[in-house]
């Protein structure tokens, strides 16, 4: 599925990648900026007094990926692709006994899935 979606049947030339990437950045400049600001705000929030009482490491991961999915308006296929990747990593950590890290990945999956499902429903509503 990933192969089909990203069309990576053959490796493109670096200049092609570069131009595509630049085009994507240009097209999504507002999204990138908003996410960058959100990322900073969320990442540094545990350093601020009082806020650190509410935001812990697990919630941080959840929030980051929730906003990432929402801001970039990710397609459900991409969401699913990410989930597969993260689940694979989580499985690895689980099998080597790093269950706490695997749990952290679980929170990420939840965050991205929650946002992804809401976006999916909103798109459905728009179509209908």
């Amino acid at each position, binding site marked *: 599925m990933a192969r089909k979606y990203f069309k990576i049947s053959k490796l493109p030339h670096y200049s092609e990648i570069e131009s595509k990437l630049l085009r994507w950045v240009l097209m999504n400049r507002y999204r990138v900026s908003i996410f960058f600001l959100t990322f900073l705000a969320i990442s540094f929030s545990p350093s601020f007094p009082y806020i650190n009482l509410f935001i812990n490491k697990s919630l941080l991961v959840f929030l980051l990926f929730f906003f990432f999915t929402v801001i970039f308006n990710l397609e459900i*296929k991409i969401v*699913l692709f990410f989930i597969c990747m993260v689940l694979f990593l989580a499985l690895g950590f689980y099998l080597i006994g790093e269950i706490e890290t695997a*749990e952290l*990945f*679980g929170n990420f999956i*939840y965050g991205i*899935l929650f946002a992804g*499902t809401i976006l999916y429903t909103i798109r459905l*509503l728009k179509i*209908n």
Partner: protein
Amino acid sequence: MLKRKRLENKFLLIVVGYLLMALTGLWFLTKSWLPPGFVIAGHDSGLALASRQFLISRLFTWDDHINFGQDNTLNIGSLTLHFMDFVLATLAGGEVAGNQISVFFWLALIFSSALIFSFTLHKHLNKAFVFIFPPFITFNFYIFQSMFMLERAKYGLFAATMLFAAITFLVLERKINILLAVLISSVIFFIFNGGSLWGLPLYGGFLIMIATIFTHTLIWGIFTKRVDEIKRILVFFLLAGFGYILINSYAILPAFVKFRLGDASLLFSQENIAPNKAWLDYISQTSSFINIFRLQGIPDWYEDQYKVNANHPYAFSYTTDKMLVGISFIFPILAFLSLVLAKTPVQKRLVSFFALMVLISMVFVSGTHAPLGFIYNFFYENVPAFAIFRTPFYKFGSVFFFGMIFLIAFSLASLIYKFSEKLVLLIEKPRNLQNSKKFAFLALVLTGSVIFSWLAYHKVLFSPQVFNWQKTNTTRITIPPYINDFKSWSETSNINGRILLLPPLDEGWRIDSYDWGYWSLSTLPSMLIFQNTVANEVSLTNQERDWLWEIFTELESGKEEEFVNLAKRLGIDFFLVRKDVSTDNPLFNLKSPKGFEDTLGSFESVNKVAAFGKWTVFGLKNGHSDKIYAAGSLVEIPENQLFLYRDFKLDGSIFLKSKRSGDAPDDFLSMQFKSFRCLSCLIETAETDTVLPVVRILPNSPLYALKRIREQTELIAASSDEEKINAYLGFSLRRVGEVKHMLDFREKEKHLVADLKSINDYLVIVYQILSSLPNSTKDFKQAKDILQVLHPIESNLRIEVDKAKSGTFSSSVISGMTDVLWQINRIKNLHSEILGARERWETEKVFGIELSNPTDRIFLSTSFLPFDEDGNRVFPTKAVLKAGEELSLEIIKRADNLLELAAPKAFLGKGYLSIIFNDLGNKFISHGYSVEQAPRGLVGCYYGSVKKFDRTLSYKIKVNAKDKDQVLKLFIREEKGENLPLEYFLTGQREVSIFPISTYAPFEFIYNPATNLDYLSIYVCTEDKELPKIEKISVHEIFSPYMVVSKMKDLPKYDPPKVSYEKISPVQYKVSLEGGESPFILILNEKFDPLWKIKPVKAGEGKEMEGDYEYKHLRIDGYSNGWLINSRQDNRFIIEYLPQRFFRLGAIISATVLIVSICTIIFLVKRGKIDG
């Protein structure tokens, strides 16, 4: 059209065939689990061994066959459940509810409901889904987690949830008219109502589903402008809710009355449920999202957050086996792949709904687990009645598993279709792919493979291990034949009184456990026979427990007369000695059944009635006890001091005085006891902790002003001097916590100085208030409170002052700290008489007493005095009463457990009474020095054991060191039965650092033993092979006796009438009185409940009229019901339990609604008025 209809019918036939095949499979599976002779019983199952009797008990709001009786109002809802138990047991040819047919029925119910649900949606999804969904929903760890107790209420509600979901989708699609949908839903929830009102938390998942459906439909309707959908769903839900209430009126109405008039509402109050927070956190610790996504996270599987429960029959394999773990990671991918695979609009809408339902339910299933645990915490702490959901995984898991399995089944079904299509297209190009035989065959094979793979993954669920709640403990047992013989005997014998179970249950666990496998909180006889059995089990009140403790003590000490009198008082006529209880289980401290059997056999007034294998029944020779009788007077004793009954040999009815009991009628009290607790004992046991409270907001915070405002509010609310002192002391402690934080973080000194000044000001105020209070210097409670608050302040500030000598802080900070220490000293000096030499209170016990009548006498119960090292009671040598003048009291022994302290002249008013002991003895026996192997290496120890150790007492251990320059640790080696193997020594023992060490005063430690210890050894060890320099170790009991003042009253001798009664049912008695005179107290020997009512039967015009409930209701003997009958206008009475009336009314409503519903459903279906 016709062809389509034919195809539909054909598919329906296939589905029916599939159902029959699955049911056959389930039948043989359950048969292999429970071959003839095996049943499921015990644990938390509520599976009766006498289902008929259990069903009958559910027809009454009072259950008089357990202990001293208990309210049954909240259990009435389980009537339908127990009706099914009875029917299924009858079909199985017995009375045991946990039989093979029963297990088959509940599994078949889940499977069939799932099939109905999936079939309802088959036109929108695909046909493979219809076949995949039911086995997936039936065989998973959520359903089988509670298979060992066959959790019928959960299974029933789970099935009802799926059926309700199916009906809701039909309503939304207008394929069923709303009236029919409401009626069918009502009937479903009449049958599968979650058991009883205790089953309310099981609705957690259902409520999440309802909320998600409604919200989804609402948003959908608003965006797509389909308001009719919103209307339909709203009307359907409201009417279904109304139907639910009406059809379950038989359970709801009496429960409502109980809540309104009784005290059962306390059970749902936040105050009572808040302590369950620790349990909630424990249950949630393994419910991480990664576990839940993998359809795991079942709390039983784990010991702590990451450690698998090695005792669980199969958790280990599924959490450690690489392949099984790997497979579990596929489930979330499969589930959410459905969002990509959904093609049609309806499919997309369904999948989006179920995906949202899964994700929302996960927040609740994970409980207080991070990252979103704060949401559950908020609900738990702030939403009224939400605290009933204290086991989130079990209560919300149903809807999560429902949603996840829907999504997984949908994805698999879609993939099967896609794969089959591709394969068929490789072979041929049929005109209609879906009707191609090759396609059908391939889809069938793939569907079968998918189902087989799922079942193979869950293979452990096919073994009888599913009934194991631990590796070696199972509810799948064979009942010994003598148990049934006892049951048959009980059915044919005339047993009126209560049957006391012997030996008593272990006081710690209160579990009824047998060497042949039965293990439960519900005693076996209570699940087996309908006669009234009594045991010291979990549901007893403190008073009931105290009475049973008394009767066990009398029996063990062989005091026949006292034992028989007490048995008659408690309505106990029979004694069942069970020699098959788990005396070998190291968990329990069970007394030997043989001892009880021998003692009962030696009593002349008790005879052996019958023997059945390992069970023997004894009975009182002379008659049975009356359940209803009259008393002419009462003796008042304070609550929780039932020992006075034994010490003073009281044979009349007792009124236990407490705050909630109110006052006894004064003209009925023949004797009154008032007890006084030892005041000085508060000081002896006062814990002097040095821990400061955790503070989050410091004076340099902008939020600090809010903290100050809150404190001002607290101060304004404090009305009495005591409250003000407590408030100021509390603030001082908090300020010191802040100071400590600020010192650690090197905050600005101005905040430190300000805080220290505040503390100083607070303590000045405390000093001023204390100085102005009369008798303040003799107030032990106040002295204890002050000691406990000032000690941590003093010890922490002293350390800081010592540090400050190195010049770290400015002089203003040091001066601030020394000012505070000075104020502490001033306050302590006010209580120097009490706090000066605290060791004095070990041998001197002070009581504040009050005598109001010249005939009042002072007694000391010796039951609470300590034993010396030879096992003899230590008696006081001197008693002094200080009340203006000092009076020396004579100590006279009046009875076995009673000393009278007689004053040389009459004394009235308040005073302080001191009893003084010469020496408490030393229970420590030294075994000398030794070098022991500890984890760190060899250590030198001085050790010994505690003579005549009693685990029910607290001990004070004192260590006198010869040299202060040594590092010492105190190890308390707790032993049960035989000594622990040596490798465990000095690890996992109670370990205390002996610090600070001084040679002028001993190091003291208060030790409270665990409940199951037999021996106690004490070691004082160094950190290396150097032997410790110890002068002496001493151990003595910490004791806190009661002083009792008795007040005799001259009452006119009332002659109570002779009472005869007829038991109409467990909830109603007819009483007739003969002779005697009023006033008197009519007593019903059943557990006290304010809803037990008495009313006279008056002769009316041609028929009997019932009067009003007008008599004062009293709690007699601390547990039973009594009514004060002042005048004798009436000779006949009715005693009844009020909720039964409402049950009858509710039952009429329920029956009417049920009949009308069924008739209407038949009418509508027959007339074809199905579509909406």
